[in-house]
């Protein structure tokens, strides 16, 4: 077969196979002398924003593949969590990072098109360690976290749950118990093990400051109320 024909078939395969559609995730192995920054640039940044506002102007097809920004990963995640998740990625956002590209209307109401969700690449232990360490060096907003004055503590579960669900309405978009709560936002029953405490507080106060164009609204409240909600996330994690 001619090269041109091979190229044509190759292009068809690439175009016809969005990452969400094939069911075996890409698997990456580490090796001596891996240039981690280059690896991330080559293999991750097509789907993860590298600067504020990135991604907003993409076409729907590309938006459907997008994940959350990684350029402030070091201000956001816990390194232990990254290390594990990169080796065994599990879904955190039931309807993906940009739900409108993963839902469709039915007479009974909107449903999530599971097949359209991204099957995340997997890293081996060695590479995961290097990538996690690298991501933790991305800390453009460290000052913001340093300004937070938050002492985590546990709180009585029942009142705190009522607050999260009834009074503040977080449950409209987030699950605080697996299978209970809205699905447009990331699951929060795992938030405490995933996120740095100061990030939680800062993000809940002003999500748009972290991620311009975010779909998370500001639920206007004072710092004491935000701290109580963060404490709730800690409490459910340790239940």
């Amino acid at each position, binding site marked *: 077969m001619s090269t041109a024909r091979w190229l044509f078939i190759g292009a068809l395969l690439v175009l016809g196979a969005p990452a969400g559609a094939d069911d075996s995730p890409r698997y990456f192995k580490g090796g001596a002398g891996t240039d981690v920054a280059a690896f991330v640039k080559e293999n991750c940044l097509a789907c993860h924003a590298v600067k504020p506002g990135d991604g907003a102007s993409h076409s729907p097809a590309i938006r459907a593949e997008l994940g959350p920004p990684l350029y402030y990963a070091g201000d956001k995640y816990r390194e232990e969590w990254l290390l594990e998740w990169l080796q065994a990625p599990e879904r955190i956002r039931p309807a993906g990072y940009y739900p409108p590209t993963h839902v469709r209307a039915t007479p009974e*109401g909107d449903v999530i098109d599971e097949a359209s969700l991204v099957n995340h690449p997997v890293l081996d232990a060695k590479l995961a360690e290097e990538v996690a360490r690298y991501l933790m060096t991305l800390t453009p907003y460290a000052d913001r976290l340093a300004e937070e004055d938050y002492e985590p503590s546990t709180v009585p579960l029942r009142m705190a749950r009522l607050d999260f669900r009834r009074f503040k309405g977080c449950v409209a978009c987030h699950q605080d118990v697996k299978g209970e709560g809205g699905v447009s936002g990331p699951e929060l029953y795992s938030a405490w093990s995933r996120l740095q405490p100061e990030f939680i507080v800062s993000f809940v106060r002003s999500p748009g400051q972290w991620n311009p164009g975010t779909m998370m609204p500001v639920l206007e409240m004072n710092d004491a109320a935000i701290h109580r909600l963060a404490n709730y996330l800690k409490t459910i994690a340790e239940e």
Partner: protein
Amino acid sequence: MRILVMIVMLIAVAGSAMAQEGRLLYERYCVQCHGVEGTGKGINAPHMSVFPRDHTDRTEMMGRSDEELFRVIRNGGASINQSVLMPAWSHNLDDDQIHVLVRYLRELCCEEP
């Protein structure tokens, strides 16, 4: 005459650009609860104790002035003694964008496609 035609065309183009912007804003911020078709059946709706408003319900929606719609989007449900599950969007959207959304809601509820 030719100028008049051009002006009319410009207005039509600007109008459809605005409708497009309204659709995109609604998709990003509102569809999660109010649904792809605006009928209040978004993916979050089954998990909510108060149902999101059906924005295609002509009678209900005609009972609200543009000004009232603007205020509830800007300041949230609690500001008009309705559910806190309808968030305030003033931190995510500027006033111009909220006006565009009000216009889009009018299309959804009350104008033939």
